[in-house]
């Protein structure tokens, strides 16, 4: 068992000298001046600038970063999504609009004829990725949602999302015997 005890916080009494503002002002100035001179030092390695020059120096997001959605592809480049609506069901922001269509291939059957994500409504919670039973939607594009000037630009449709997507290697559908001759 860990030990938990209370610890009274202490405050130091101040003498007359400290009460005269001067020592603490100088101490404060030494901290800020230290930062100032370090950060104007000609040797850039000495500087401790925390800001990133964002557009010039692109930030690298961690692997798990939730950014723009992307739709994964099958081996043949078709969309993996089968319009099961799990993502749009779990989406708390109701930002995914899917209309299912009949696919020509009877082994696929269903595909999203319309798949639009309103990236402005999206709250980037990542529940859609968790809810996807087909590894079709992911948010690991490594790109954040860009700013928009028009509402329409924020509607990411299927093809745009597929462009961001990549090939998914995940196996789907379990083991099946070849189709019996009909």
């Amino acid at each position, binding site marked *: 068992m860990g030990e938990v005890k209370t610890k009274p916080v202490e405050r130091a009494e101040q003498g007359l000298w400290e009460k005269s503002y*001067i020592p603490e*002002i100088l101490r*404060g*100035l030494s*901290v*800020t*001046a230290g*930062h*100032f001179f370090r*950060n*104007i030092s000609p040797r850039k390695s000495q500087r*401790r*600038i*925390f*800001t990133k*020059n964002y557009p010039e120096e692109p930030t690298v997001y961690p692997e798990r970063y939730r950014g723009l959605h992307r739709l994964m592809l099958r081996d043949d480049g078709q969309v993996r999504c089968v319009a099961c609506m799990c993502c749009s069901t779990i989406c708390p922001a109701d930002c995914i609009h899917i209309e299912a269509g009949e696919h020509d291939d009877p082994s696929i059957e269903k595909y999203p004829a319309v798949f639009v994500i309103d990236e402005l409504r999206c709250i980037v919670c990542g529940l859609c990725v968790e809810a996807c039973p087909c590894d079709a939607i992911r948010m690991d594009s490594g790109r954040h949602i860009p700013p928009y000037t028009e509402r329409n630009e924020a509607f990411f449709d299927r093809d745009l999302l597929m462009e961001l997507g990549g090939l998914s290697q995940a196996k789907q559908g379990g083991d099946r015997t070849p189709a019996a001759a009909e």
Partner: protein
Amino acid sequence: MAEVLITLVKIIVIVFVFVLGVAGSMTLLGDRKQSARIQNRVGPNQAKFFGFSLLGFPHFIADGIKLVLKENIVPAQANKFLHTIAPALVFIPALIGWSVIPFMDHYCTGTVMTLPEHGYTEVCVDGEWKNYFSIMHMNSGVLFAFAIAAISVYGAAIAGWASNSKFSLLGGLRSSAQMISYEVAMGLSLAGALLIYGTLNINEMVRMQGNLLGDWLPMWGIVIQPLAFFLFLLAGLAETKRAPFDLPEGESEIVAGYLTEYTSMKFAMMQLAEYAATVFIAALVAVVFLGGWQMPWVYADGIRIFGNHWTPFGEEVWYYISIVLRIGAITFKILFLVWLQFMMRWTLPRFRYDQVMTLGWKILLPLSIANLFITAVIVTILA
């Protein structure tokens, strides 16, 4: 006619190039770049001139253009006349004070000779002093500067009252209370120095600071009046209404104080006046306590230290070199003090209203009176 032209040139160079240039660029370099470096940031660098960010200077211009183009808003039921005139009341005094700040000794048309036996006084032989380096040569220069600075109280108070906003009103009250209180301490702390210098003429005061104590220590105000220097600097900081004394516009308490209802160029004028005041206080401290245009051991006729004297490059040339050095010296001192004020601004938390009053009346005022008294006693004894 020539006099007028020279005065005009001086006004333009000092007020528009130096004061507004420094004050304006301080908004950028001081408030932005310096604070950025203190806070481990980069500061503005996105606005560019032909692809060069130039330390962020284009932002200064962009800011100016933006402020000019902004809508000028006068609140409903505000006193339109006073609301409009207030920025001018703040801005103009901040500039007029500069007329008595000397950037260099008077120009001597003849030969300058330093008389170490008379306390390193410089005299002009075979010629006369021409006032080229301050706008106005005034015997009561310090008094004039104080008188003018006191006017800006009205600007802030009127701005606060005329805005028809409670936050502005509080800001105006705070600013007038604060400025009036600190003017007393400021004047009294200076009185000690005046006793020693025995003159109100700023240029004379600076000239006297060229004396060397024991042939090596420049007799700057800070040396002979260290306490007064500290008191004056503090009171001066409070006068400029900048952090840690920025409670008249303490943005977290009363939004922006007397500036709350100002926009556009009126706001810019107020803001610029504040920066100009910062520079002006720096200049006052520099001329009264830091030797003004004096550069240690550099005199118009050569370098003197420990009784030694040599004149590099010959006397004719050296005189011009010394002019440049001295202008450089005062500029450096002013900029250093400005820099220091900004460091304070970014380091220290803000006082509370009543604490500022306590500090002003109960600490600074008694101390400056004590300082004056002791100085007076010493001066009497020595005299």
